[in-house]
């Protein structure tokens, strides 16, 4: 572990050095500056570091290929400490002092909204590749913002679509973290599943304290509802706790669990993953992507640079920066107004999918979601998702009328 982390750090350092010392050989002129204001310390640290790796790799590749509009790409990294006020401050500093052309990097919902407000005020493009609160798309949408992955509602819809296909799951419980993400996810999931499958029975939703690690009482309460499946928008420590502590209650013999299961979670669970009945929602599981030459090449160079498989966050961040480059090339400039116009116009073929587009109304990309079953497979040291179903983004995106109505209500 020790060697691995150090190796990884060295790689990051080397990549940085290459970037900050003038970028790619073939790119010339003033750099296109990408402000990466990320939650590098605090609850989001692991995700943000992966995202930074993905963006670093994308920038290196762009530079090798001549940069953006012939100009080198430069990543300028700041730590928000996962504090919204700190996020707003570094965003402001990046824009006013470093004169960045685009802002990204953020993970926590609160930090994301804080940075979005700064982007709006200072009219600087801002995209989210890790954080996914739909408040940024709906009530608090501002024209300089776009989101390159499925937002929380879309993920919950994807889960509902998946659950609806399981004919023998008649009784569903929900167990979410007691904060905005948990509540909107449960609400969206329930709403969509009711539409798809009106006879499904729902037990009362249960919410667990954010960051709770003693999940036994919640597991007991959930199982007492005798569900066939449990939809659980949980995260980090609470999710690990359910996976580990649930086994002692026969959770995975008594019910299925549908939850967020990105590559980092799969890796950290390792051997402790229950053998059966865990179904994971993911944003960009590298093993389930269509293994095009671009994807395999990306996985290889990522592993070479950082000594590990790319997580969903790394892929989103990579795709995000590449998408930005494509939009800039299309606009012929990185000036905010034409660039934002281009964001709404172009179609982009990314690692996750071909034909990715951003809807101008809410800045939402039609990014896909993936749901599959966690299982151990030869060739990987950690469990992966198998029987993965990909859900296209477009049908999951909230309807335009819904968005307009929600915005009107928020006024």
């Amino acid at each position: 572990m020790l060697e691995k982390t150090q190796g990884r750090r060295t790689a990051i350092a080397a990549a940085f050095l290459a970037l900050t010392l003038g970028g790619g050989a073939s790119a010339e002129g003033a750099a296109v500056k990408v402000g990466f204001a990320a939650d590098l310390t605090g609850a989001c640290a692991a995700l943000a570091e992966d995202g930074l790796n993905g963006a670093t790799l994308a920038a290196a590749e762009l530079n090798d290929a001549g940069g953006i509009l012939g100009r080198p790409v430069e990543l300028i990294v700041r730590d928000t400490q996962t504090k919204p006020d700190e996020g707003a401050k570094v965003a402001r500093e990046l824009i006013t002092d470093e004169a960045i052309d685009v802002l990204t990097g953020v993970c926590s919902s609160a930090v994301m909204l804080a940075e979005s407000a700064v982007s709006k005020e200072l009219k600087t493009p801002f995209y989210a590749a890790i954080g996914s609160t739909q408040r940024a798309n709906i009530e608090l949408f501002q024209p300089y913002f776009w989101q390159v992955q499925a937002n929380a509602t879309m993920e919950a819809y994807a889960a509902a679509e998946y659950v609806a296909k399981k004919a023998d799951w008649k009784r569903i419980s929900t167990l979410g973290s007691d904060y905005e993400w948990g509540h909107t996810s449960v609400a969206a999931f329930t709403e969509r599943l009711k539409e798809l499958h009106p006879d499904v029975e729902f037990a009362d939703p249960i919410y667990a304290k954010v960051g709770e690690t003693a999940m036994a009482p919640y597991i007991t309460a959930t199982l007492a509802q005798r569900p066939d499946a449990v939809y659980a928008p949980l995260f980090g420590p609470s999710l690990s706790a359910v996976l580990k502590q649930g086994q002692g209650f026969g959770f995975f013999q008594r019910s299925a669990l549908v939850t967020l299961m990105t590559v980092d979670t799969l890796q950290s669970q390792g051997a402790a993953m229950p053998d059966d009945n865990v179904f994971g929602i993911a944003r960009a599981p590298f093993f389930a992507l269509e293994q095009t030459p671009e994807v395999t090449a990306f996985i290889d160079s990522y592993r070479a640079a950082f000594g590990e498989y790319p997580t969903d966050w790394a892929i989103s961040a990579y795709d995000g920066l590449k998408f930005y480059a494509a939009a800039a090339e299309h606009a012929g400039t990185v000036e905010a107004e034409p660039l934002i116009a281009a964001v709404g116009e172009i179609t982009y073929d990314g690692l996750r999918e071909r034909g990715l587009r951003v809807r101008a109304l809410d800045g939402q990309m039609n990014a896909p979601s993936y749901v599959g079953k966690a299982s151990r497979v030869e060739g990987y040291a950690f469990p992966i998702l198998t029987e993965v179903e990909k859900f296209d983004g477009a049908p999951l995106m909230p309807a335009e009328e819904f968005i307009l109505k929600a915005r009107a209500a928020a006024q």
Partner: protein
Amino acid sequence: MILIQLVNGLMEGMTLFLIASGLTLIFGVTRIINFAHGSLFMLGAFVTYELVPLIGPGTLWGFFAAVLLAGLAVSLLGMLFEMLALRRIYGADGLMQLIVTVALVLILRDVVRMIWGPNSLSVPMPDRLMGALQIGDSYFPLFPIAVFLAGLVVVVAMIWVIYFTRAGILLRAGTDDRGMVALCGVNERLIFTAVFAAGAFLAGLAGGLAAPYGEVNHLLDTTVIVSAFIVCVIGGLGNLYGALAGALLVGLTKAIGVMYFPRLSMVLIFLIMALILIARSMGRQGGTAR
């Protein structure tokens, strides 16, 4: 369901006691509020993570041996910290000692992150503790039962040390009256160092024991320290039996609270602490200064 929840509560209570016992022990004798207690807990979990694959992976004895060793390693660090830093400022404002331990929190968090990275790690459970005790329709998970028993062993061992050994007598003397220890002809510093080492050992032990039941990451410190404080304060800082009672009270209330007032879960233990503190303040006569 109430029965299972009560058992859940007892299990969590014992884990909390293991965490809080070291904190309350250190406070009782040295009057130091050790903010780094959560960090020592976290370190115990990480050391256990390293040791488990080396010592009989999957076996019961291997796990407990790893946990004990982790406790000892953390204890050593605690001892060093006491001797190199804390010892130099006994007698200064109590706040200074608190801030020194806060400094240790900051240092350890970054050091842990430098060594183990920001990603969460997982310590495997011993194979024999993976399952559950199934009685009728009810499941009672084995692992927390084992932790509960380990906790009982610690409680009994502590009672034995405190009441039946010379060290315990000195310890009690130190808690009641510091001057007394000096009169007994024992180096007071030695006692403080020993107590700090013992408290750190308990923290490391608790971290190791809890490691397989959740994830191990560099953010464990803050989660742990706050609940440890609350347990100690509910039981009366420096009071071991109080800590046990406080831990069980918190564990049980949380487990039962899930059933009756789920939305309060985030604030429940703070409410309990506030109510107990307020009740305690009402119980005393108006003008009593100390």
